[in-house]
């Protein structure tokens, strides 16, 4: 029955560790989830950074002159004086004197749409668009405004900018913390899986040792399977993660919509000079997952084997 097999040997040598006895399926599921979460965390970090940059840029490109009413000088005169100052200031691109109703409208969220606003000394606002490349000397401008116009002040939005930066830093630190936790969990998973793999193949390991295999040789038989598992998990995790961002954009109205959906869509779809960096960042996930699986598995296996006789 078996005579037909004479003098045949496999074209390719079989792996010394049976793949079926490796806990790779469980590891791959867990690693895929880890990579997916890492992908989401990276996407969130990119979105936060982009949003903060956009907001900072908007805020930094505009300052506001605030003029409080006073009894001795008419508001219209004060506004003329401010306009005069702004006209002569280098670095001011344009300015807009907001109507009294516009100022009152800004207070509506706090005071309500009440007639009382007409009776209150609501300050008038002048929105000034500045040239960010050659901005005016704000200290000097503030001094001139305060000296020449009674009750006028300059708001450069620096406090908002600082608070925004502080909030962004906190969110970025949180995101990085999440990434670190994901990495630690992934390392723990690989170590656990390596131990299980060796336990499941105890007899194979023992035979290999007895016929003179070195620990690094045995580790190599296992680590490549972990490397493959890491690469596959990383790729699946990152593809599902990227699909999540695109779906988030599409499901919320597509690229024309605004807000988070628009930003999520813009992460991966759009001008290559913007999206290519994001693609590279996402590509880091499978690369790191693969290397992590390889290195953590090898070190764990060598450590376990070093305790064997």
């Amino acid at each position, binding site marked *: 029955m*078996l*005579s037909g*097999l*004479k*003098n*045949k*040997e*496999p074209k390719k*040598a*079989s792996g*010394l560790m*049976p793949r*079926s006895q490796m806990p790779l399926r469980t590891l791959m599921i867990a690693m895929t989830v880890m990579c997916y979460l890492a992908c989401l965390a990276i996407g969130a970090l990119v979105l936060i950074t982009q949003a903060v940059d956009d907001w900072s840029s908007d805020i930094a490109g505009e300052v506001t002159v605030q003029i409080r009413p006073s009894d001795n000088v008419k508001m219209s005169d004060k506004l003329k004086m401010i306009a005069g100052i702004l006209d002569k200031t280098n670095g001011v691109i344009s300015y807009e004197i907001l109507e009294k109703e516009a100022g009152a409208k800004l207070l509506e969220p706090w005071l309500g749409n009440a007639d009382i606003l007409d009776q209150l000394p609501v300050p008038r606002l002048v929105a000034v668009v500045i040239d960010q490349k050659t901005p005016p000397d704000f200290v000097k401008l503030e001094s001139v405004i305060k000296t020449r116009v009674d009750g006028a002040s300059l708001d450069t939005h620096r406090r908002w900018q600082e608070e925004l930066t502080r909030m962004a830093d906190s969110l970025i630190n949180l995101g990085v913390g999440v990434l670190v936790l994901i990495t630690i969990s992934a390392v723990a998973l690989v170590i656990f899986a390596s131990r299980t793999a060796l336990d499941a193949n105890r*007899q*194979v390991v*023992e*035979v*290999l*040792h*007895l*016929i*003179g*295999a*070195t620990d690094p*040789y045995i580790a190599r038989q296992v680590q490549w399977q972990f490397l493959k598992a890491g690469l596959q998990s990383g790729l699946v995790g990152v593809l599902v993660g990227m699909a999540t961002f695109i779906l988030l954009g599409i499901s919320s109205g597509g690229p024309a919509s605004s807000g988070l959906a628009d930003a999520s869509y813009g992460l991966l779809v759009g001008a290559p000079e913007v999206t290519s960096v994001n693609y590279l960042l996402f590509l880091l996930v499978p690369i790191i997952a693969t290397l992590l699986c390889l290195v953590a598995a090898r070190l764990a296996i060598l450590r376990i084997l*070093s305790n064997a*006789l």
Partner: protein
Amino acid sequence: MSRTSSIVSLQNVGLRYGKGREVLRDINLELTPGSFHFLTGPSGAGKTSLLRLLFLTKKPTRGLISMFGHDMMSLSRRRLPKIRRKIGVVFQDFRLLDHLTVYENIALPLRVVGQKPKDYRENVHELLNWVGLADYADVYPPVLSGGEQQRVAIARAVISQPDLLLADEPTGNVDPVMAQRLLGLFGGLNKTGTTIVIATHDSNLIAKSKNPVLVLNDGQLGYA
């Protein structure tokens, strides 16, 4: 490092498992290159334990062991594989790898030392013929009979032409004719310089050979 011309030297060796009584006591043994010994004794006398010391899966709780000129008590773990490659082992329970074919099982010791398949292909087929399993190269161990598995284990143990061959009941699962044939094969290997120790209960096998017989009784070693 070498204390004697023996390739294996055991001096006052004792072995106990955990806190139990000593299963081997005051073992003194010298194996000279090219010698052929049988090791026998009643069940539980310590034959397998003695073999475990010799194929380096156990360390004695006392005494000295020297192998191939190395003091095994002080040898680092990293140097063990080099010593193990000089030893061929036939286990009582064969310990074949079920996911590898007969061919791959036999070639394993050569694969582990980095030999290329084209370099050992002929040797493996020659050995398959030698143990009468030429038609079974691509068969997986679980479909083989006990005797066939035993012959694969023997082929695996001798493929790298070890300096020392340790066999635990190598004829336990074969008929007397095959047992005699295997003994002849061990004798042939011994003539090429391999030192051989065969642990067996088979008194017929021992009787048909003129080689010295080591007897283990209640953990102590003597000559028959």
